[in-house]
C-alpha cells in the first residue's frame, strides 16, 4: 500500500493503518510495517535512525559506533504503547544526527555514502542491533504482528506525513522477525513488496557483478539494489528504470515507433538479467513521492486511485475505499506501467540529465563495495 498527497499536505498515520487493517487477511501476523515521509519537520536535515536492539549490550555497542560517526542531537526511546498481540518487541530507539564534518571530509564521501557505510557497519558488527531506517525526515515502523497492531503500537496516529507506505506480511521463505518485516529501507528509500520474484537467481548473480551482495536472500533486497543500480549508478530516469525491471513484451516493442522500439530493445537486451520476472507489486517510497510497479503480466493485484491531490495504490480496492470513499478515479495500472506520485516542490531523488548530478543525489545503497568488505570482516 502506498499513499501520497502530491500537494505536500500531511496525513495522519491513522490513514495508512486503516488502509492496512481492511487487508488483514493478506498477512498472518508475522510481519507488518509502515514508512512515513515528512514526519519529522522539526529535524528536516538530520539523519534519523530507527534502531532495534535485542538487549542493552547491543544498544551500548551500536551507540558507540553512532557516537563515533555522528553528532547525536537527540536520542530517545521510540514512543510506543502496549498493544494486545504485540509481544517480544526489541528495544526501540531513535536518533537524530548529523555526520561529523571532519570525518566526512577525511573520507571524501558524500553524506549518503557515509550513512550507508555506518548502517552496514552497525548491522554487520553489532550482534542484536538492526537499523530499521536511516533517512532524513522519514522513518520506518515495523515488527512482528498485524500491521494495524504495529501501527498502534508505534502510535502512528501521532505522526503526520505526505507519503506513507504500508505492508502486511505472510512470510513463506524467511522466518518472521522484527528486522525482516517490510518496508526494507536504506537512506530515504523504502520498499514494500507483494509477491515473489522467480528470477531471483539471475537477478542476484547480475547484481554480484556490480559489487552487491544479496545477504538477506530476499526479493525485496534484490529489488532495492536493482533500483539503486539503475537509478543511481546507471543514471536512468525513474520511468525507464521501471521499464528495465518490468519491460514490455517483444510483440509490443515491435509495434512501437522506431525511436521507442530502439530504446526499449536496448533496455531489454542490456538489462535482461535484471528483469524482475514472476509475480510482484512493488511500492518504492522516497522523499518526494512514490512509485508503484506491477510485474509485466500482472500476476499480482495492484489498484490505483486519485482523489484530489492524493494518489493511492493498494493490493485491494477496499483499502482505497477506506481512505477515499469516493475517489475521482480508480484504475488498474497496466502490467509494467509505473504509477508515479511526486510531491509538489520536492526534488526527485533520482537523476537523469533532467535532474541533479550524481554526487548530489540521495538514494539507497551508495557504498555497496564497502558493505561487502565489512561483512567479510564480520565473518
Amino acid at each position, binding site marked *: 500500500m502506498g499513499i501520497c498527497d502530491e500537494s505536500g499536505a500531511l496525513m495522519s498515520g491513522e490513514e495508512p493503518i486503516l488502509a492496512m487493517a481492511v487487508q488483514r487477511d493478506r498477512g498472518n501476523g508475522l510481519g507488518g510495517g509502515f514508512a512515513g515521509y515528512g514526519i519529522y519537520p522539526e529535524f528536516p536535515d538530520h539523519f534519523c535512525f530507527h534502531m532495534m536492539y535485542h538487549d542493552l549490550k547491543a544498544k551500548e555497542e551500536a551507540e558507540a559506533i553512532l557516537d563515533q560517526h555522528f553528532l547525536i542531537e537527540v536520542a530517545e526511546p521510540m514512543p510506543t504503547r502496549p498493544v494486545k498481540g504485540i509481544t517480544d518487541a526489541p528495544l526501540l530507539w531513535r536518533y537524530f544526527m548529523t555526520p561529523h564534518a571532519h570525518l566526512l571530509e577525511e573520507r571524501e564521501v558524500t553524506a549518503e555514502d557515509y550513512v550507508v557505510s555506518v548502517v552496514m557497519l552497525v548491522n554487520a558488527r553489532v550482534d542484536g542491533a538492526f537499523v530499521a531506517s536511516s533517512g532524513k525526515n522519514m522513518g520506518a515502523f515495523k515488527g512482528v504482528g498485524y500491521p494495524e497492531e504495529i501501527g498502534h503500537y508505534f502510535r502512528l496516529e501521532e505522526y503526520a506525513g505526505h507519503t506513507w507506505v504500508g505492508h502486511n506480511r505472510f512470510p513463506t521463505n524467511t522466518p518472521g522477525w522484527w528486522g525482516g518485516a517490510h518496508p526494507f529501507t536504506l537512506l530515504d528509500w523504502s520498499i514494500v513488496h507483494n509477491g515473489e520474484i522467480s528470477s531471483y537467481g*539471475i537477478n542476484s548473480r547480475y547484481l554480484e557483478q556490480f559489487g552487491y551482495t544479496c545477504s538477506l536472500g530476499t526479493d525485496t533486497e534484490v529489488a532495492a539494489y536493482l533500483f539503486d543500480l539503475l537509478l543511481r549508478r546507471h543514471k536512468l530516469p525513474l520511468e*525507464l528504470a521501471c521499464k528495465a525491471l518490468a519491460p514490455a513484451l517483444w510483440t509490443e516493442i515491435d509495434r512501437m515507433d522506431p525511436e521507442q522500439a530502439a530504446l526499449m530493445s536496448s533496455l531489454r537486451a542490456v538489462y535482461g538479467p535484471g528483469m524482475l520476472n514472476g509475480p510482484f507489486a512493488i511500492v518504492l517510497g522516497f522523499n518526494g513521492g512514490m512509485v508503484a510497479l506491477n510485474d509485466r503480466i500482472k500476476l499480482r493485484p495492484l489498484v490505483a486511485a486519485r482523489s484530489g491531490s492524493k494518489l493511492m495504490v493498494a493490493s485491494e480496492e477496499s483499502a482505497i475505499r477506506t481512505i477515499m470513499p469516493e475517489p475521482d478515479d480508480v484504475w488498474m495500472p497496466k502490467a509494467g506501467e509505473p504509477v508515479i506520485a511526486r510531491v509538489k516542490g520536492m526534488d526527485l531523488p533520482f537523476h537523469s540529465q533532467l535532474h541533479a548530478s550524481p554526487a548530489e543525489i540521495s538514494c539507497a545503497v551508495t557504498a555497496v563495495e564497502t558493505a561487502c568488505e565489512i561483512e567479510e570482516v564480520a565473518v
Partner: protein
Amino acid sequence: MQQTFVQPEFRVKIDYDKCHKCGRCVQQCGWGVYDFNERPIPHDEKCRACHRCVTYCPAHCITIEKNTLAFRDNDNWSTDARKAVWKQAETGGVLLTSMGNPRPYERIFDKLVLDACQVTNPSIDPLREPMELRTYLGRKSDSVAVEPNGTGGFKLAGSTGLERNVKLDTPIIFAPMSYGSVSLNVHRSLAMAAERCGILMNTGEGGLHEDLYPYQDNVIVQVASGRFGVSPEYLQRGAAIEIKIGQGAKPGIGGHLPGEKIDREVSSTRMIPQGSDAISPAPHHDIYSIEDLRQLIYALKEASGYKTVGVKIAAVHNVAAIASGIVRAGADYIYLDGFKGGTGAAPQVIRDHIGIPIEIALAAVDQRLRDEGIRNQTSIIAAGSIRSSADAAKAIALGADVVAIGTATLLALGCHLCQSCHTGKCSWGITTQKPELTRRIDPEWGAERLTNLIHAWSHELQEILGALGVNAVESLRGSRERLRSVGLDEQTCRILGVKPAGL
C-alpha cells in the same frame, strides 16, 4: 592375404520368406553390403547399422543384430580395446571415426534437474500467456544512456548498443557443418529452416555455396585455419562471422576432408583443386597468441563493415581463461564446444580422450566472465551434445545465451549415428558427395523436418519457462538457482554453481 581378426559387428538378417526379392536394399545401402543373386546376399562385415535398408525394405523383412560373439570376460580389456589393437596391427594407421564421443563418461545434464513454481510464485501457462524466447546474439553495452526526446519522453543517447547483435527468434541455432563434409542438400535444408525459424545456420569451414546466397541473413560464415572459401564477398554475406579455433570433438587438430569428397562444386566453393585433400592446419598459422587473435577479429570486422564476430573454441582445461582473453580481444560471442560434440571425421583417440564436458566448461566460463565484470560484453553459445530441449534449458540456466545443435539436426534428416561419416558413403545422403546418395535429401523435406524440430524444442522451452514461473528466456539465463543436482559430487556442484537437491 591374412584373415582379419576383427569379426563383423553386426549381423544382417533377412527373412527370405517375406522378402519380395525387389533389390531395393541393394540400391539403398551406401556401403555396398548386399550382393544380389536371385535374392539379396548381405556381407555382414560391411554393415554400419545405419538402418537405411531396414527403413526402406517394402517387406519389413530386414533386421540388424549385434554380432554377439562371446569373448572371455575381461573388464580391463574390453572387446573394443582388443579390436582396436587388431585393426592397428593389421593397418599401422590411426583409427578414424566420426560423430560424437560414445564412451560412457558421466552425462552431467542427466544429473541436473529443473525447478518448478508452486503457490507463492505461480507457474505460468504458456498456452495462454506470452512466453518470450527472443535472444540477441552478440556484445551488449554495460548500461543504456538516454536523453530527453523533446516531447517529455526519452530516447537513446547514441547508438542502440545492439549493432553487433543478431536477433534470434529462439535461442537454438544450427552448429557449423561444412559443405563438403555434408552434402549441399543438407546445407540447403539447414539454410531454409534457419530462415523459417528466425535463427542461424553455420557454414562450417567449407565456404558458402552460391545456392545459399538468398539465405545469407541467416548464415554465420566461418573462417577456419584452412581459410577455405574465404573472400571479402564471403565475409560480407554472413549475418555474423565466426573464427574457428577449435572443435569439441577434436580439440587441437584441424579438419580433414578426403579428396574423394571434393567434387567440382565443393572444389569451387572451397576454392581448392578438385580431388585434393582439404586439410586444415591444427592452429591458424597467423594466430600464435591472443594479440594475433585480436588482430584477426578486427581485420574481419574491418573487412565486413563491423559485423558480429565470434570465436569458436573447444572445451579444454583452461577454457575459462582463454574465453576471458577472447572477450577482451573483442569477440562479440564465444562458441564453446564440449567434448561430446560431433564431427565428420576424427582420429578416434582424439575424439574419445581430449576435452572436457560442455556443462563444466560453460559454468566455468560464465562465472569467470562475471567475476571479471565482462559477461555483458559477450554472448555464449554452448554446444557439444545438446540432445533435447531439456539439455538446452539446463545449458541456458548454467549461463548459455544460445545453444547450437549439430548431431540432432542430422538425426532429424535421417542419420542413425552409425559413426561412419568419414567414409563418405552415408546411406542417408547426409555426409557424402555421391550424387546418387545426396539426392536422397530433398531440401524442402529436410527444411520442414528441421523447422519442426526447432519449433518442437522451442515449445518445450516455453513449457519449461512456464513451469519455472518466468515468461522470458533472459530470466532463466544464468539462473543456476533453478537447477539442482541429483547425484553429482560436491566438487562438480561447486564448479557448476548448483546446489544438491534438497537444499
